[in-house]
C-alpha cells in the first residue's frame, strides 16, 4: 500500500514537473523582507502584491487563476536573501523571482536567479548596478540618477528658480548620483549652481555649511540625502533664519523627517518619489481606498511598487502565453506604457523602468502631491 502511494506521488510529481503540462501556469517566487530592519518595506510590498492579485481576480479571472505566489523571507540581509531565493528556485521551482527592496539584497539574489536561468523582477531597487548584472534582471521603478534630472527640470520650470545650491552626503553614492544629474540638467536648462557643500552621514551639525550657502543667496537648495540628516538640515536652517526652498529625492520619504525637522521647518519643500497617496488620479485613489479597506492603513510608496510590479509580471506572462524563461524575458522587455498606480511604466533597453516621477510638497507633518512629471519613453505604444 505504501509503495502504491509512493508510485502515485511519483506520477503526480512527474506530471506537475512536466514543462508542457504546466506551461500555462506561472509560479512566482516573491522574496521580501518580512522580518528585520526593512520589514516595513517588505510588508508593504507584499500587501501591494496581495491587493493586486485579488483585483486581477476580478478584472481577469482566467489570468489570475494561472498565477501562484510562493513567499519567502529575506530577513533584511543579503545572506538570507541569497538563501531565500535559492529555496524558491530549487525547491519550489518558480518560473520567475519577484523581489526585493534594498538594492544590496537584490544584488545578492541576482546570481542564483541567473544561474537557474529564471528572470528576476525587482519592484523597488533603485541602484543602477542591479540591472547591469544580467539581461534576465528587470526593475519596475526608476533609477537614482533619473531623479536628479527630473528635480532640476522641476526647479527650473515649475518653481522658476535659477540659482541653486547643493548640500550632499559625499560618502553616499545615492546622494552624489542624484546631485551630479541634477547639476548637469540644471545648468543645461540655463540655471546656475552657486554653492556646492558636503556633509557626512552621522554628522549632526551643518551650520557652517548652511552659513556658506546662505551667503551665496541661492533661491533653491538641493539636499539629496536621507531623512535623518535632511530633517536636521531643515531644522538648523530655520534656526538661523535661512529661508530657502529645499529639494530632495525619495530618501526623504519618511515620517521621521517631519519629527526631526519640526513642523515649521519641514514646511514648503519638495521631493521626488514613486507615489503620492493623495494623487488625484482615479486609479491611485481607488488603490488607496482598496488598500485602506483591506489593511487599515495608508499605503506607502513600496505598496504601490509591489502592486504595479506583480501586475507588470502578470501582463508579460499573458503576452508571452507561456512560463518559459526566454519568452517571459522577451515579454518583460517589451513592456510599454503599462498604466499602474505608481505611474506609467516602459521597460528600456537596460531593463530599467522609464516612468513618471511624482513630486511631493512637504507640509508640517506630511507630504502631499504636487506634480507628476512624465518622461519621453522613446518607444512607441502598442
Amino acid at each position, binding site marked *: 500500500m505504501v509503495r502504491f502511494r509512493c508510485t502515485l506521488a511519483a506520477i503526480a510529481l512527474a506530471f506537475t514537473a512536466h514543462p508542457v503540462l504546466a506551461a500555462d501556469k506561472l509560479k512566482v517566487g516573491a522574496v521580501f523582507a518580512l522580518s528585520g530592519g526593512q520589514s516595513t518595506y517588505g510588508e508593504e510590498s507584499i500587501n501591494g502584491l496581495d491587493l493586486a492579485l485579488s483585483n486581477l481576480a476580478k478584472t481577469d479571472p482566467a489570468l489570475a487563476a494561472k498565477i501562484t505566489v510562493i513567499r519567502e523571507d529575506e530577513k533584511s540581509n543579503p545572506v538570507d536573501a541569497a538563501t531565500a531565493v535559492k529555496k524558491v528556485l530549487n525547491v519550489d521551482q518558480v518560473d520567475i523571482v519577484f523581489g526585493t527592496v534594498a538594492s544590496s539584497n537584490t544584488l545578492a539574489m541576482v546570481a542564483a536567479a541567473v544561474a537557474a536561468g529564471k528572470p528576476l523582477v525587482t519592484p523597488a531597487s533603485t541602484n543602477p548596478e542591479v540591472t547591469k548584472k544580467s539581461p534576465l534582471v528587470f526593475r519596475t521603478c526608476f533609477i537614482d540618477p533619473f531623479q536628479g534630472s527630473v528635480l532640476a527640470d522641476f526647479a527650473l520650470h515649475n518653481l522658476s528658480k535659477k540659482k541653486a545650491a547643493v548640500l550632499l552626503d559625499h560618502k553616499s553614492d545615492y546622494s552624489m548620483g542624484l546631485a551630479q544629474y541634477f547639476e548637469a540638467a540644471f545648468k543645461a536648462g540655463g540655471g546656475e549652481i552657486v554653492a556646492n*557643500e558636503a556633509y557626512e552621514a552621522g554628522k*549632526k551639525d551643518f551650520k557652517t555649511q548652511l552659513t*556658506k550657502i546662505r551667503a551665496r543667496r541661492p533661491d533653491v537648495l538641493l539636499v539629496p540625502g536621507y531623512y*535623518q540628516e535632511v530633517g536636521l538640515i531643515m531644522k538648523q536652517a530655520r*534656526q538661523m*533664519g535661512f529661508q530657502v526652498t529645499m529639494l530632495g529625492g525619495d530618501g526623504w520619504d519618511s515620517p521621521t523627517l517631519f519629527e*526631526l525637522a*519640526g513642523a515649521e521647518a519641514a514646511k514648503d519643500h519638495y521631493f521626488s518619489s514613486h507615489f503620492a497617496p493623495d494623487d488625484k488620479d482615479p486609479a491611485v485613489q481607488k488603490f488607496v481606498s482598496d488598500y485602506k479597506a483591506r489593511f487599515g492603513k495608508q499605503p506607502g510608496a513600496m505598496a504601490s511598487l509591489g502592486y504595479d510590479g506583480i501586475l507588470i509580471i502578470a501582463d508579460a506572462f499573458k503576452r508571452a502565453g507561456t512560463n518559459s524563461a526566454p519568452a517571459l524575458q522577451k515579454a518583460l522587455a517589451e513592456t510599454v506604457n503599462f498604466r499602474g498606480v505608481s505611474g506609467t511604466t516602459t521597460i528600456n533597453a537596460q531593463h530599467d523602468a522609464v516612468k513618471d516621477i511624482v513630486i511631493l510638497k512637504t507640509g508640517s507633518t506630511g507630504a502631499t502631491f504636487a506634480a507628476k512629471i512624465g518622461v519621453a519613453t522613446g518607444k512607441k505604444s502598442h
Partner: protein
Amino acid sequence: MSEFLQFLINGVAVGSMYALIALGYTMVYGIVSLINFAHGEFMMMGAFIGALVLHRLQGTPLVVALLIAMLASGLIAVVTELVAYRPLRNQPKIFVLTAAIAVSVLLQNVARLVFGSSAVAFPASFPEGSIAFDSLGIWIEYSQLIVLCLSLVLMVGLWLVVNKTKIGMAMRATSQDLEAARLMGIDTNLIISFTFFVGASLAGAVGVLYGMQYSVDPLMGVQPGLAAFVAAVLGGIGSLPGAMIGGVLIGVIENLVAGYLSSTYQSAITFLILILVLSVKPSGLLGRMTVVKV
C-alpha cells in the same frame, strides 16, 4: 569678517561639547592609562536616558532630566569598569583596549535593541531662535548660548572637584602613582570608579545637549567620540586644561576648514590633526613628556 566670526561661534559651540567628552577620555587615561573607546557610547546612553525621562515623565524640568542622564551614564561607566576593565587591569594594555572596543559595540547594539535603530527627535528642544548682531552680521543661537554656559559651569565644577576636594586630591595622587597612592591608604579602586563616574557623567550631559540640538540615535556617539579623542590627544592626554583647549580647538578648526577650504574635508581634518600631533609632538599641547622607566 562676519563669516569668520560666525564660523568661530559655530566652532566654539560644537567644540565645547567635544571638550566635555574629551575630559572623560583624559581623566580615565590619566588614572589607568586606558583610551576608553566606549566613552562616546556613554554620551549616547545619556542622550537616550534624558530623552526617555522627558518622554515618560512629561513636565520634568530639563535640569532634572539632565541630572538623571548624568547619573545614569556615570553608573553605566562604573559597571563597565567593574565588569569589563577591572578584571583585565593587570593584563597587557592591549587586552583592556580591546575590551573597550567590545563594550562600545555592545552598547551601540543594546541601544539599537532597546530604542530602535532610527533617529528620534528629542522630546523637548531648546527655545528656537537667535540673538542677531546686525552690525557684525552674525547671530548666536539660544541653543549655542545654553551649550556654552552649561559647558562652562560643568568645567568649573570639575576643576573645583579635582583641585579643591579631598577626593580630588586622591584622584590626583592616584593619577601620579597608583601604587604609592594605595600605600598611602587611598582606596584606589574607589577612586578609579569615581573617575569613570565623573568622566561619563560629563559625557552624559553632552548627550542631552547634543540630543536636544540635533537628534538621538544609537550611533550618535561615534563621531563626537572620535573628535573628542583627537581633542584629548591634541591637548595632551592626561591633562584636564589640555582636553578643554583641545576640544574647543578641534571644533573651531573643523568649522574653519569647512568654511574656508571645503566642507568635504571637515571630518578628514580631525584625523590629519591626530597624525600631525602624534608625529610632531606626541605629548600634545599641555601634556608632559613621560619617560618610560625600565
